[in-house]
Each structure stands twice: as structure tokens, then as C-alpha cells.
């Protein structure tokens, strides 16, 4: 299950999407599927094109824990809950 927050939710009108990823169950693949399905720039927002890292100003939680660094190496499994924040914490 992918849950969307902030502008990702407001601009797509979707709070959550159930996604089947098949064999390549990586976060970049999840971003691709979401981008095609919801026509929103998930890849640009959540993936640095040069380093392949998660940009500093966004947060992805997998089952409540933050993902960092090279997100391509984070593999998802059945039943995982992924929450995508196109912004970060402050205050």
C-alpha cells in the first residue's frame, strides 16, 4: 500500500493506492508505477537523478521507518506500507 501526503495527495486527489510490483519490488519501481497511474512527478520528487539517493527535502517511510540513501537498494515485500511525503520535517 502506498499512501500519499502533502501536495502528492492534494494534487492527485488520492490518499492511497494499492500497488502490485511483481519481481522488481524496489522503491524506484514503485515511483514509476505511481507516476504513470496518477500522472504526478513522483520520480523527479523522490529520486535524485544523479546520485540515485532520496533527496534531503522529502521523506519516505516503510512501515513507519524512514528510508535513507540509495533507495534503489530498499526492496519492498508483500504487505509493506509505504508513506510518501514530498516534503520534510521542520518546526
Amino acid at each position, binding site marked *: 500500500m502506498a499512501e500519499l*501526503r*502533502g*501536495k502528492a*495527495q*492534494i494534487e492527485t486527489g488520492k*490518499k492511497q493506492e494499492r500497488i502490485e510490483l511483481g519481481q522488481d519490488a524496489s522503491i524506484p519501481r514503485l515511483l514509476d508505477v505511481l507516476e504513470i497511474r496518477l500522472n504526478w512527478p513522483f520520480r523527479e520528487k523522490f529520486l535524485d537523478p544523479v546520485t540515485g539517493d532520496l*533527496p*534531503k*527535502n522529502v*521523506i519516505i*517511510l516503510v512501515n*513507519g*521507518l*524512514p*528510508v*535513507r540513501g540509495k533507495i534503489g537498494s530498499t526492496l519492498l515485500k508483500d504487505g509493506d506500507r509505504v*508513506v510518501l*511525503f514530498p*516534503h*520534510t*520535517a*521542520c*518546526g
Partner: protein
Amino acid sequence: MYGYAGRILRVDLSDSGIREGELNEELVEKYVGGNGFGIKILYDEVGPGTDPLGPSNKIIFVTGPLCGTILPIAVKFGAYARSPLTGILGESFSSGIFSEGLKYAGYDVLIVEGRAKEPVYITISNDRVEVKDAGRFWGRNCWEVEDAIRGEFGAKRVGTLTIGPAGENLVKFACVTVDRYRQLGRTGIGCIMGSKNLKAIAVHGTGKVGVANPAALKGLANETIKRSLGPEIEHHRVYGTMGTVEISSEQNAFPTRNWKSTSFEGAQEMGVEAMFEKTFVKDVGCVDRCPIACGKLNVVKDGPYKGATVVGPEYQTAYALGSNCGVDDIRAIVKANEVCDQLGIDTISGGCAVAFAMECFERGLIGTRDTGGLGLRFGDPEAVLRTLEMVARRERVGDVLAEGVRSASGKLGCEDIAVQVKGLDCPGYDARTLKGTALQYAVSSRGACHLRARAQVPELRGVVDYTEIEGKGKLVKDREDLFSLFDSMIVCKFALPVFDLPEIARAYECATGIRASVEELLLVGERVTNLERLFNVREGIRREDDNLPKKITDSNQARFTDQAQLDRMLDDYYDARGWDRATGLPRMDKMAELDLEVD
């Protein structure tokens, strides 16, 4: 003296005496401004055991060397005193026109001392400083008084500080409302103003702050504006602090119902998406020239709270008046925020007092006989609003709550449900989940504070592992020193992604002409933190006071930071600080290294 106005203004309310003094060069060199000036003057002039509500307590309003310059992110000022809520260091920062106004009027620091016999307000219009009769303002709310005082000044650009009924009635966590929508929120500065019969201060200045290198400072300001409009700070610009609500709740860091749980099932209903959908009007900067403009103007458009208007709620208000009271309606939170701003109540301590009372009601420790028939139940917005009114007026149970949760819990015999450190109610980052945050609450010089180290930021962003204890002592120490420096200059901490230490060093040199390395500047931050500690030590604070409430340490819950974990982090923190592990006192060699001479 570039970057500074060069003068300190003193107003003694006991005899309406007005005195001016020169800014001491040693003070400038060793303490820079803001936070540094505040603690140094407080340490020297407010002795141990001073009655916080007596005439000997002083309120020291401070600016920094970057305030009033072209830098758009240096629009803050601070207030220092002995806190009536905690009995230790009282300190609070706000943004507003007051910061530039005081410097343009010719002063870096305003010290208010003594006690007026009747209600008064102070006006500062350049060199003309007056103490005026405020009898007609007494009993009126902050916004009404501000409007009336602004009317006196006509179209001039005026910075205003006002207290409401809460300050007049000596509610220990009364705040000061600044330019209508901002506050000196924490530690009860509004209560001290009330004790001095001081209803308001208004400042108007037309002078300028001379800087050493105007062209270079302008270049840096332009660079800062450009970067502030880019991706590094988009989260502040677009979402403000409300963007953190669901980030916290999803990571079990959003205290709920007086800290009964660590996440809130209603977070989506009162989070940033709900705000944009239901109440958001536009972005608002602390002052008009701030390019970040993280403030959000919200107006309730329908329902029972229609018309309620605030710049906010900020994240902490959404916690204290929202999740902590079990309220999930953003419109009700906006209304409660407005009520606090008008009555002059700190939204964090005010919300925490209401949440505490709700748990007391649930446990039968207070009943309808104490509340005038009101059922104090979690999730009821009307109960929140009516309790805040009772607190501000000191009516019924409000009179007990107005003394602060620490005191109220002692009277009601339920210290185990009081969520405070050193008397200051815990902010809305859950210290059971976030270990560095737990440590920062335990050691912060004004009591549980989320702003001195901002340890929650790297923890919630996943930059450091929030479950890990190792390394948190040094993390908190380093970040305390960093943000002590920010508060000494004074620049907005939210600008850190675009205005870090190298930029601070450049700005300081451009403004003052004083060249200092990043290391030398951080030493100022460390000196300031140590002097704050020494102030508290003089008031009796020791290692055993660097503690956490039972709601955080109790191991009979899913998440906790117990005493053993805290002790390990404290040892590491004291080692990093050069403080004695057994007592928590700064060691003599550390004091010598920091050139601190104290009694």
C-alpha cells in the same frame, strides 16, 4: 560600532525612570548579541532566589548584530527573565517589527525593571521614551490593546508587545502577543509583565543600523533570498511547520491525549492537507520582507467557529490544542489558537494544561463541581475553549491549572501524569520514540525545549537513527551550541538549509567588521550555553533535575525512554560538555577554556 545601535535602554517602572547606557565592548566581543546578551545581563543583574513576580526580576529584551540589517531572515528578538513557571532561566524568542524597531530607535537592548503602581504601557519612538497610563486597557485582550496603541501611532511602522487577561491574572504560562499573530510564548514572560503592571510596549524607530560592508551584506542578502526560493527550503515555504504533523504521527512521535499514546488517529483530519482544504488563505512572513513566509494565514470559513483567524496553527499548537486534547478538527484548533492569542496564553503550556485536566477528569481527580458543570473529555473542542477561558480568568479549576501543570499535579496528587521537565511542559515531539529529543528535553536550559537543539529534525528526517542512544550526547551538545549562536546573532533557525555557519560568519563580518572563524563563533554558542547552565546551577539545578517525566520513562508501555537509557545519554552529554558526571556542574577547566568568570 557597526552592526549595533550601541545603546541599552532601561525603564524602571517603580519610578518611571528612564536611563540609557552604552553597549559594553566586552559584552559584544564575548557574547555577540541576542541570546548572549540576554543570559549575561540576566546572570549579572538578577541574583539567585529573586522572586520572579517581584520588582527585582527584570525582563531583558534583546536584539542581535544582524537584526535591522538588510538580511531578510534576521527579524527576531528575545526576552530573558527568571521564569515564574519554572523558577529557572526564562527565555523566549519571537519575530516581529519590534526587533528592527528597537534598533532603529537606537537601542540593542531594552531592560524593564521594577513594578508600576498602576497599569502602564511603554512607548518608544526614537529617542522619546514614555511610560503611560494603561488603565483603559486593563482587562482587554491582546488584539484590542494592540489596535488601540497602533491607532496612537497612525500609519507608522510600529512593533507591539501586549499581554491579555492571562498576563494580568498572573497565569504562570502567560505569553506576550507580538504584532497580533506572533508570540513570546514560553516560560511566562507575559506573567512577569503582568506582575509589573505593564500591559504593553510599542516601538517605532526611523534610524538605521550602520554596517561595515553594505555592498557585501546586500550581496549575501540577495543570495539568501534566491536560495530561500529554491528547493532546499521548499518544505518551510509551502507547508510551514504544519507539514510535520503526519510525519511525526506516522513515526510514533506525535503525543496524543496527554501522552497516552504516540500517534494520533485523527492526524489526517487536522494535518496539513486538511488545513489547505478547509482553512488556508495565504502565506504570511513574520515581517513583509521574509522570502520564506512559512506562516500560514488560516480563517475558519464555516461551522461554529466561522471567522476565527490566526497565522497558524504551528505544529506545536496543533499538538497541544489538537492531538494532546484529542481534537481532530482543524477548524476547532484554529479557534483555540485564536483564543490563546487573544487571552495571552502560551499555546503549548495552555494546551498541555487542558490535556492534563482532561486526564484528571477521566480519573475522577476533578469533577463537574470544579469545572462549573463542564465535562472535560478528550476530543471535545468546547471543553478546550472553556477551560482556556477559566485558566485566563483563574476561575474554578482554571485557578489551579494557571499555576502550571507541575504545581497542579502536586496539589491534585498526580505527579505521574504531569508531562513536564523543570516545570516546562513538554513540546510535541514524543521523547519515548525519539531518543535525542528525550535528552534535549532533559538538559535544555529553560526546561523541556524543542528549539535549543532541534534534535527532532535529524531524527524525524532519518538523518540519524532515532532509536539509537549512542552519539546523542554529542549531537545534542553540538546542536545546542549551533542554535545558541543562531539566537545570539539573531537569525531564524528555519533558514539553516540556506544560511549555515559559513554564511553566519560572512554576515557577522559584513555587519560588524569583526572577522571570526566558524570555530570562534561556535565557541560563543558554547559559552552562552554554559552561562545558562551556571544561572540554573545558581538556582539549585543539578544532574538529578535533568530528568524526564514518568509518562516517558515508564517501561510498562510500548515505547519509552527509561532512566537507564537517559543516564547513558546524560553521561555522554556531560562528557561532551566538559561537565561533571556526578553533579552536572561545568568543570573549572571548561569554564576557564570559555573565559567564564562567575561567582
